[in-house]
């Protein structure tokens, strides 16, 4: 079970949170301007790295607010946590 630092509530157990998948996939400005391929890319295709992944979490059983987490998918080490709208921190070497 992960230990996640909610930007508003602090460190909490993973059971208080829900997972929201890959982060920084903005809803397209005008979906109707996209080709089927581009729309399918938005709908279905996600990164699946063996390494760092930026993803969304929501503190469902706390403040109910969304935020972003950068997590290593093998070690589960959390390398960054930042609020929606904030730019992701620079990747560590």
């Amino acid at each position, binding site marked *: *079970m992960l230990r996640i630092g909610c930007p508003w509530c602090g460190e909490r157990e993973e059971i208080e949170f829900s997972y929201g998948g890959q982060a920084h996939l903005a809803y397209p400005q005008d*979906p109707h301007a996209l080709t089927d391929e581009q729309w399918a890319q938005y709908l279905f295709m996600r990164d699946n790295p063996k390494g760092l992944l930026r993803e*969304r979490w929501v503190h469902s059983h706390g403040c109910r607010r969304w935020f972003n987490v950068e997590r290593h998918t093998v070690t589960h080490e959390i390398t960054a946590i930042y609020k929606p709208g904030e730019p992701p921190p620079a990747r560590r070497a």
Partner: protein
Amino acid sequence: MSGAFRIPGAGHIDRAQPLAFRFNSKSLQGCAGDTLASALLANGVHLVARSFKYHRPRGMFTAGNEEPNAIVQLERGPHTEPNLRATEIELYAGLVAASVNCFPSVDFDLGVLNRLASAILVAGFYNKTFMWPKSFWKKFYEPVLRNASGLGVAPDAPDPDIYDRLHWHCDVLVVGAGPAGLSAALEVARQGLRTVLIDEAPEPGGTLLQRPAQIGGIAGAAWAARAAAELDGLANVLVLRRTSVFGYYDHNYLMALERRTDHLGPGRAPGIARKRLWHFRAARVILATGAHERPIVFGNNDLPGIMLANAACTYATRYGVALGRRGVAFVNNDHGYALALDTQAAAGNLSLIVDARPAADPELARRAAGAGVRALQGHVIARALGGKRVRGVDIRTCAGTNAGRVECDHLLISGGISPAVHLFSQAPGTLRYDARLACFLPDRASQAVEVAGALNARLQLASALADGKAAAARTLAALGRAPAALATSAALTASSAASAGFVPPATVAATAAGTPAPGPVPDELHIEPLWSVQSLLGRKLPGKHFIDLQNDVTESDIRLAAREGFRSVEHAKRYTTTGMATDQGKTSNVTGLAILAEALGKTIPEVGTTTFRPPFTPVTFGALAGRDRGTLSDPVRITPMHAWHAANGAVFEDVGQWKRPWYFPLPGEDMQAAVARETRALRTTAGVMDATTLGKIDIRGADAAEFLNRVYTNAWTKLAVGSCRYGLMCKPDGMMMDDGVTARLAPDRFLMTTTTGNAARVLDWLEEWLQTEWPGLKVYCTSVTEQWSTVAIVGPNSRKILQALAPDMDLSNAAFPFMTFREGEVAGLRARVFRISFSGELSYEVNVPSWHGLALWQAVIDAGKAHGLTPYGTETMHVARAEKGYIIIGQETDATVTPQDLGLAWAVSTQKDFIGKRSFARVDTRRTDRKQLVGLLPRDKSFVAAEGSHLVASPARAVFDPASGSPSIGHITSSYFSPNLGSGFALALIANGRALRGQTVYCVRDAGPQPMTVGDPVFFDPEGKRRDGID
């Protein structure tokens, strides 16, 4: 004296406290401090079990958690527990245990007949046999196999014990209280850190209690006791005894099971939780989990009396038990050689050491000669002889020449060590194969963890103690508590490695200045890998050559798997079941993969290990459940009217966590009769339903209408205050997510209703879009489900009933039309009344603050008496809504269904954009052969199809034919009997279904296909005349 095989003066047992116990109905005696295994051995009892597949006689093989053979059933009645290792059960007065997997007794077992069939019980036998004839499976094979499988019986009464859980945060968690763990714990505890030390044994000490040892001039056991006393006396330290860490999870989250009362016997500690499940969150972890010894595979290596060398040494040293009168040891390394000599020192019953190597360590050889033990170098044991006990061994030279037969009544084996890497590997850490020591060792960690002691290949006492200190020093440095003695370089190494997420323990250990890493010499095993005597000699030898004793997997099973093409160790494991028993292959995994590597012509690192997964040792379900049993297992949600429903005989249905009345049977009525009566009332007079559980979300803010426009498929900006609208919600992929009626309370305020089961999900969904995509919208969402009680008054007489309760409210169709709401007084309560309908009837849903729910319900019941008002439950609601073709999310939809598929295109705007709209232009959603919602009427009116049934185009297609693919053209989503139609009826999703109207399809079922006619999904009042009532 407890037992003929007790060694006078030896062991850490209390001879002054004899304990009587029963094993297989025989009365025996042991001592306080014994395990069941040591007490049995003290009485000369070696045969304690029958093996899983071949029912071969088996005895104790180890003295610890790795035991594969000595599985017993402990106690009787509700306290009985199967699958316990005799080597771990602490003896108490009156203990009752029995062998498992044998009939009628362990001494005379009919299951040995399996041995006659051993030719077909080979690797993967369950995939190869019992296949034909097909009809035999259900009636013959399965019952016989079910009876034959398993290790004991489950209790047939509820568990009378209580179980607890505890969460604990600490700076340092030390797993294992052997020499390395104790010395590490002392170091960190003395720095004032919040420390936890855990060991599965009743007392800390580990191998210090199992072998003769001296530390600083005192006996190892005394040193351990002194260390434990010091730790117990520190306020910042928690020492847990009889506690097994079984799982190492993410972010240094570890779980352990503490056995608090098992050593006292069942029912002897009333009020105390029997087991406690510990949840740890540790800043740093030190693993000092030790090592298991490994066997060597030779003929009949499973006979009772054959035991790992460290187990023999433990029985002699710790429990003062000799395994017999005349022992032989078979080793290929110095560690095992030394253990054999230590055993001899305590028990004095060893006559011969058979060593596969040309020479042993000269110092050990001198010790052997001094102890009067003959050593045969360059020899192996080809086969053990005996029936229910080993009585001799056949010896050969390593060249294969016969070297005679030696009589013995027990045999010690040591094929090397397997460090207990399980927890480290779970962490997850990677392993490396050390060719010098012929074992897998921890390599790269991915969490804040150090390893120490035998787990880290420090086998000698001095180096284990030093390694524990070194691990503690690295831990302290990482926590910023570097003691003065610690050089900066070590701190730097540790912290830089930690910040990269990887801490290679072996490397760090080697560079930790101030604590010189022990040189290679003291830890040298001088092992010459010997996995199987057959493969060493290059010839087949008589007898069965076991690798996995608990699952009865032999060397030839592994070789068969390799011949049949199993290349991956994970596949070979599952095919042969090596390491898949309850011992999880603690003594067999490495041997199995080494033999697989040899059979495949690969190296051991190339083959690699299987994945280690929790739990390390079995965990009682009761402990996992803790207090969350019965009514505490899941929250129950009830409405304010629940007491009335219960008092009036409602049968309840679980909808999510809610208890909803399913139907209200009158005396003598079954469900069918009750639902028929309720449905008739609804359509002819009036019905009343508790609709409180429907999800309700208050949506407020200047942009509320715009927000609904984006999340619902239809338009909302022009909805007048006081009006309601049915809305559909889709996911971006265009698939249906939820539906419900939403009312506009004010220009900037809406009340949204959701399906009962989806309420939380819809609120989360709204929040997600507001927070992550449209943070600029001024909208606030609040769940008000529990703040309002809802009473639905439904049917032709509903207006009269409501009028009686709300005399001031104008209920005429003109003043209060369909899909509007009014605020006013109902039964003297401030209420919101919605004129909406989920049944096609004239209907009013009255909402009052929830604490008035019961009062309103009672008032409605009283007012309805004169008008035939009948309370109804969810089943009648379903029949009525299905008759009208109204969908239920999750029943007619399954995340592959669009609004258009359901015939709801009328509720999908073509003007504005909304979540999911783009997807309706995708090729897949425009297909004409998508499954569409239709109604079905059976030719046989009494037929009510099972929901989920498949539909086919012709009776001939009701049989599956692989050549022509799936014959299914769709499935039934809802199915009921309608008293109003006098017939069964169903809703179904059928490919291109709307084009099939008037045609016959066939419902597939065991009793043969049933013809049904495709039609419109609206079965009742298609013109919708009834919703306005009779004015």
